[in-house]
């Protein structure tokens, strides 16, 4: 294991048993996570991004299992852990997760304060009194005004944005090495979303944890991600640094995602859209999963699964377009000069 890497995933397959048949939700994913970086995993619903991170914390649903491959975390082979007892040493303490909906992530009948202190007592081995102090500190740090008073309030007395701050405070109270943010801002308003993203960035500076940031919105990750992995139908189809994905993407799906962003649309022109719908998990995928929706699809895409091609040391894409025999295809015009284009757009306001 590379010292730089905190988490290494090799050839991971995750499958679920649904009514007698085996469904593959994650297909042959290899991935590593470097210390203190922010890795964004971008994908649509059903692309497997949440399932992947659930596998990191042993929180797959009862009918799900790792059918192939390994996950290593700092010398522990997570993919071998079976019972919850073994996971208790990892979850929270090493890898914590915050979820999409702050409205339901908190226990409705316990006070905000007690839910933070509970974790402090458990993971930081403090007395209740000390824990309360630490909890109030954390609340202040995550931007809760009047924390001493609000310590004794219940979740229903908090707004959505405030609750997400509390959820982050709880995750921080675990002192994790890795923080998985599973669409933490999807349920929030844009202004709150911007604030929460800023907060996560600030806290990362201070606490030096590693972030896996899951989202379906490419726009959101531009400001926060160091690297981006794009997922489609249980596969990572492209992975690279933030700039590589935005300015030099290679996979047609990434192109499509970028070019359909309304921020890039010019008035009066039709918005670039991806035809069709994502493939159903119940169907066996032959060839490239994206092929049926890919306007650049070649016959080979319907025959054989494309391998991972290396673009640079940090940039990989899973498309036959990078094979030598493939025709030279330019990415859509609208994203060719993305930076230039965005500069124009933002200059206007």
């Amino acid at each position, binding site marked *: 294991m590379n010292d730089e890497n905190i988490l290494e995933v090799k050839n991971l397959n995750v499958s679920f048993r649904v009514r007698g048949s085996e469904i593959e939700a994650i297909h042959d994913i290899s991935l590593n996570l470097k210390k203190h970086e922010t890795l964004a995993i971008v994908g649509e619903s059903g692309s497997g991004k949440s399932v992947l991170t659930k596998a990191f914390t042993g*929180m797959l649903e009862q009918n799900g299992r790792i059918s192939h491959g390994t996950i290593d975390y700092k010398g522990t082979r997570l993919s071998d852990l079976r019972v919850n007892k073994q996971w208790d040493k990892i*979850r929270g303490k090493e890898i914590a997760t915050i*979820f999409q909906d702050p409205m339901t992530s908190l226990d*409705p*009948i316990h006070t905000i304060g007690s839910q933070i202190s*509970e974790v402090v007592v458990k993971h930081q081995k403090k007395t209740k009194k000390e824990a309360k102090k630490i909890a109030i500190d954390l609340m202040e740090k995550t931007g809760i005004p009047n924390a001493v008073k609000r310590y004794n309030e219940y979740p229903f007395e908090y707004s959505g944005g405030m609750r997400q701050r509390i959820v982050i405070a709880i995750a921080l109270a*675990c002192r994790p090495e890795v923080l998985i943010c599973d669409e933490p801002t999807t349920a929030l308003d844009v202004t709150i979303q911007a604030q929460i993203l800023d907060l996560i960035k600030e806290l990362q500076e201070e606490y030096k944890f590693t972030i896996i940031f899951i989202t379906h919105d490419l726009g959101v990750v531009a400001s926060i991600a160091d690297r981006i992995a794009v997922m489609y139908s249980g596969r990572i189809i492209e992975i690279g640094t933030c700039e590589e994905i935005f300015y030099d993407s290679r996979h047609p799906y990434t192109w499509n995602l970028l070019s359909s962003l309304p921020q890039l649309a010019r008035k009066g022109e039709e918005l670039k859209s991806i035809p069709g719908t994502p493939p159903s998990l119940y169907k066996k995928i032959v060839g490239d999963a994206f092929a049926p929706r890919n306007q650049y699809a070649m016959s080979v895409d319907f025959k054989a699964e494309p391998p991972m091609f290396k673009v640079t040391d940090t940039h990989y894409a899973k498309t036959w377009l990078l094979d030598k025999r493939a025709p030279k295809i330019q990415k859509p015009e609208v994203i060719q000069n993305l930076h230039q284009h965005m500069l124009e757009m933002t200059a206007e306001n």
Partner: protein
Amino acid sequence: MKKYLFFRILRSLLSIFLVTTITYIIIYSLIPKRDVFSQDPLIQKLASRPDKLIDYKNNAYHNMNYLDYYDTETLVNKVQKATSNTDVSGSHGKKNFDILNKWAKKNGFKIKTYPSSKRYYAIRDLPLWERLGRFYGNLVKIDTPWSVQDKNNPNLKRYLKIENDKWVGWALVGSGTKYRYQIYFNKSFPFIHQNIIHFDLGTSYPTFSGTSVLDVIAGRQGATVSKKYNLGHGVIINSADNVYTRQYQSKTHRNAFDYDRYKDSYTNLDQNYQDPSMIGTSFRAGIFALIISYAISIPMAFFMARFKGKLFDKVGTGVVTLLIAIPSLAFIYAFRYIGAQLFGLPDSFPTQGASSFASWVMPTVILGLLSVSGLVIWFRRYMIDQQQSDYVKFARSKGLTDNEIYRKHIFKNASIPIVQNIPGMIIGLIEGATITENIFAMPGMGKMLPDAILAHNNSIVIGLVFIFTTIGVLSVLLGDILMVIVDPRIKLSTKGDE
């Protein structure tokens, strides 16, 4: 909150009033009044004495508020007073009849003659609303120092004072009141007792003939027991008298022995009985059954949910399905049989009586078991619903162990609806008690209801409906209040708007 509670209580009282009134109207208008004698053995005996029979029947109707009845003596008295005519008598004759009839017409009565003696008596059918009026008019009686108006005792002192009484210890003692001890304390539940407010639900007939309904239901039962009263100065009296119940008795009825003992006019008292009252019996059985059913079902549901889909859950689900599907009667008999055969427990309550612990085991355990299935189903359901909620997912991701999650979070959240269901349980227990008490011949309210119905004891039926409804209404209220205590999200005032 206060305003809400006030209206809530008002509504509850209205519910009780409505249900009791409707029951009263239904029973007193649909059941022919002669039916009340269908189970009365005295009727047979009186068959040969028609005058007595009429007198007996009309007295019974009178007591049950069907009609007003004046026998000859009372009638003549009334008429003499009203008309200041001392000549009139009750014997047959036109002159008497005219005078009596004139009075009767004025007052809505009808003059009738006894079949054999041909003397006159008067009856007046009471319309339903008047009966209801009397029922509610007499319902609440408040004792004051002016309650007793005894012409033979003009010097009766009238006061209320707190003193250390030699019979009952510290108490609020009254004179001129109906009851001597207005407020007193002793070791029996609920420790503080009062005699200021009494309820009067009418008079029982034909069973417990002449006793007030409330005494039938709330009075202690069984054989009398004596108790030692230490009056100080080495005086110890052994008596079966229940001194707490001392009531005023006029000189004419009083016996000298009692007067000598108590040194005042409060010589009318009940005895100490060995067994709890009907309501007490039901109450005891109910409380223990409640505890038993929660003690069984909460852990059972907890582990079924915890190990959902595993063996324990499957077996548990099977058991619960059986419990629901099997008619309670069959279930009770089967269990009673098992209890009797395997553990030698009495299969009838009176065999060993209320004083024996063994008598209580089967009825209470069965009563408790009857509600286990419902509770398990719901609690398991609530637990499983909670398991799937996001906060549990988050609790797990923040590193809490399964034990901690179940104990601190899932269990508490799932308990909230259960707490609110407690009143529902109580209503269920009342239903269950009707069955178990009947099968075990347990002298409680549950057995009393079918007994009273079979005996056509309308007063008792109404009384029981009133008490059951009151318990039901109050327990629902209690459940909602409990809910506010356990769930921070709920405020009663807003709940009322929904």
